[in-house]
């Protein structure tokens, strides 16, 4: 993203939080254009009409879940980066958003400096990944590969990606992991991005498979799969 003019979608129902968030974001993207939406419905129409580079999406909205906005963004503007902003830190809340294609998440209540730091890292392509989420992703891949039929192409994590997840699950930060695996920080970040992408693809494939199983599509109607 850098310092170019960026369209940033801010989906947040609390005005105070919205204002505060804008202040933090402006520190990273001084020339950003904010497209603000206090409701999910509004956000969906913004997504349909405007090019979006970056999106900050609150999950708990009065008229629905931010996950739908993430899905819509993933569907209509795959290049945009969606980041979930929430006060729910538990993986039960975050995981569906990540499956829907969110690139990372921020905890709203963190100090401004922390938020800015995380935003900067994300803008540099280093998404955050908590131990609980990492473990959840490992579980997801293990069970989805067990479940998926043999003839279907599978989305599989590479050994390195698995290794990164394992370390994250143990509570190691990405720079620490880079040292441990004798890799550059950039490479480790790439692995994490790849993991998020595969999670999204695998989840979509699973959803398609489930839909097919329920008879919503014909046999050929499954989503294109991402094969490693």
């Amino acid at each position: 993203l850098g310092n170019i003019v960026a369209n940033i979608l801010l989906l947040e129902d609390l005005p105070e939080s919205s204002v505060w968030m804008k202040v933090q974001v402006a520190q990273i993207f001084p020339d950003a254009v904010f497209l603000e939406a206090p409701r999910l419905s509004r956000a969906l129409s913004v997504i349909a009409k405007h090019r979006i580079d970056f999106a900050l999406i609150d999950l708990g909205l009065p008229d629905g879940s931010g996950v739908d906005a993430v899905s819509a963004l993933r569907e209509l503007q795959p290049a945009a980066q969606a980041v979930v902003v929430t006060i729910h830190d538990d993986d039960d809340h975050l995981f569906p958003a990540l499956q829907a294609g969110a690139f990372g998440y921020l905890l709203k209540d963190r100090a401004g400096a922390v938020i800015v730091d995380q935003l900067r890292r994300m803008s540099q392509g280093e998404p955050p990944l908590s131990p609980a989420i990492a473990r959840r992703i490992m579980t997801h891949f293990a069970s989805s590969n067990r479940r998926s039929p043999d003839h279907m192409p599978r989305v599989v994590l590479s050994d390195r990606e698995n290794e990164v997840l394992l370390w994250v699950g143990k509570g190691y930060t990405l720079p620490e992991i880079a040292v441990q695996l004798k890799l550059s920080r950039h490479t480790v970040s790439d692995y994490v991005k790849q993991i998020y992408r595969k999670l999204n693809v695998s989840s979509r494939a699973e959803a398609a498979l489930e839909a097919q199983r329920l008879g919503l599509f014909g046999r050929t109607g499954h989503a294109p799969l991402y094969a490693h």
Partner: protein
Amino acid sequence: MTSVHSRLRCSTSSGSAAHLGLWVCLFLLCSARVDAAPVRFALIDHVTSAPQQPDGLVAAQGDVVGLPDAWPRSHPGFTGTIWYRASLMLASAPPTEPLGIYIRRACTHLDVRLNLVVVESDNFGDEAAPAGCSRPRLIMLPSAALHTGDNVLDVSVTGTALRRLTSVQDAAGLSSIEVGDGSELVVSHLFELVVEPLLIGAERIGLVGLGFVLLTMGWLRQRETQYLYLGALCLLWAAVSLSWWARYLPSNETASALLQGSVWSLLLALAVQFSLRLVRLRSKQLEALLCLQVVLMPATLWLAGPDRLFSAAKVWYVLFALELAWAQWIVLLTTARERPRALKLLSLIAYLIVLCGVIELGRQLQYLSPADGHATQLIAPLLIFAFGVRLILRFNRSLQTIETDREYLVRQLQGLAVDVETRAERMAQERANLMRENERKRIASDLHDDLGAKLLTIAHTSDVATIPDLAREALDEMRLAVRGMTGKPVNLADALGDWRAEIVGRLGQAQIAGIWEDQGARIPHVLSARVFMQLTRILREAVSNVIKHSAASRCKVRWEIEEGTLRMAVRDDGKGIGEELRGGQGVSSMKVRAKRINGQCLVESRPGHGVEVSLTVPLD
């Protein structure tokens, strides 16, 4: 001896009820023969014979005829009474041992006179009572009626012409006559006199019993009509054999013949139906034909008139034999196709059945004498018996199969019931869990949305420096409380991962180098939600203290597990705290929390040498 004589008299006059008495007497005679008396024995095979005229007169001089005398040959077409006269010559005085005569067959009515004294008579009053032709007679000759020298034995036989009968068994005639010592005669004809009637009686009783058993079974299993057919066959056969031995048949000979004929056709219909049902064959047309035959046969006999009864019956007998053979052939064919293993036994049985039929036919067509193949009367019921027993065994086997199946099903059902029960229990449990989970989610969501949003607003809008931090701490506390609400145990390894990320991150943000050591991550332990929450709070408090007060550059967090005890140590290289701070609120709250989970928390410090918070908690 006189008493024996009078009993003999009695027995000869009162029919089958007194037979037992007769046999008892004969056995008494046998056993009473203490001193060996000389055996006198003679076979009368030539007699003078003359038919009795309708007016009752008999010619004094008759023709010499040989015995046995079968009327169909010697007097064809004759119905009436023929007298036979033989003379018995006693060389010495009448013996003390009573003499007797044995007549194998006298058909149909017999009258015996010794020296014109009636010693045996089937004719009572005016009405001639029909008698069983096959019944052998032993007639004791009273000593008083005998005298030295010539004695006259008159035997009169009353019979019906064969053409007026339906069965050659009832054809009139007289067998040869044996004269001799009464007890000696009994011994030499023990089989005919005692064993055969006993056998036939036993067979008849057995058939009746079997018949009722089969009928009951047929009634219970109405789809398997072979039981009914065989049961009816048993009872009818027993009834038929009873009629042969009964002293009293319908007095009208034609009616009796018609009855016998129709009984035969009914027997045949039952036998054919049974044979076919045994191999599960069924034909409505055949059933109708057999029924028609049962009606048709007596009808044709009646139409043929009394004088052509036998000729008409013979045609039917041939037809019956053919039908029986055909049915057996069909049975064999079907068995060969469907159950080749049972073929041997069934062929033997079919062969015997056909053999009986052929012998019987041979007798009726007079290729065989009525006495030949007498054994068919014994064998045929035995065959019926064999079938009956086989059917009962099969019935029993199917009952056992049903019982086994039932037991199996009951077991299956019980298993299913248990399964359903456990499933229901599990579902109820899952439902309860789900409800609890939903409730927890609702509360968590409420907490986040209401309390969380308010705390967040405070954190984002307050200008006072410490307020946002306090609000964040409150939010962290709230999240921990929500997490603790699940009551779900936490893997120690997972907890260590979460703690590490949080603590190292926070220390890093405070520009303190965090060093984390946890070999405990390799040990599979599970923390209860309560212990996890308290440990988290203690850890956070200890690290917060380091960040806020220590001015340290390094902080080391070390975890160990030893003998079921979890040990945590948070050590910094800061300025340390004095005595006065050791009882501070943060420190005491850590100690209180440790105590709640049966642990112990120690805070050690020397000024200038940092602080070490150590915690030991037992793991269950």
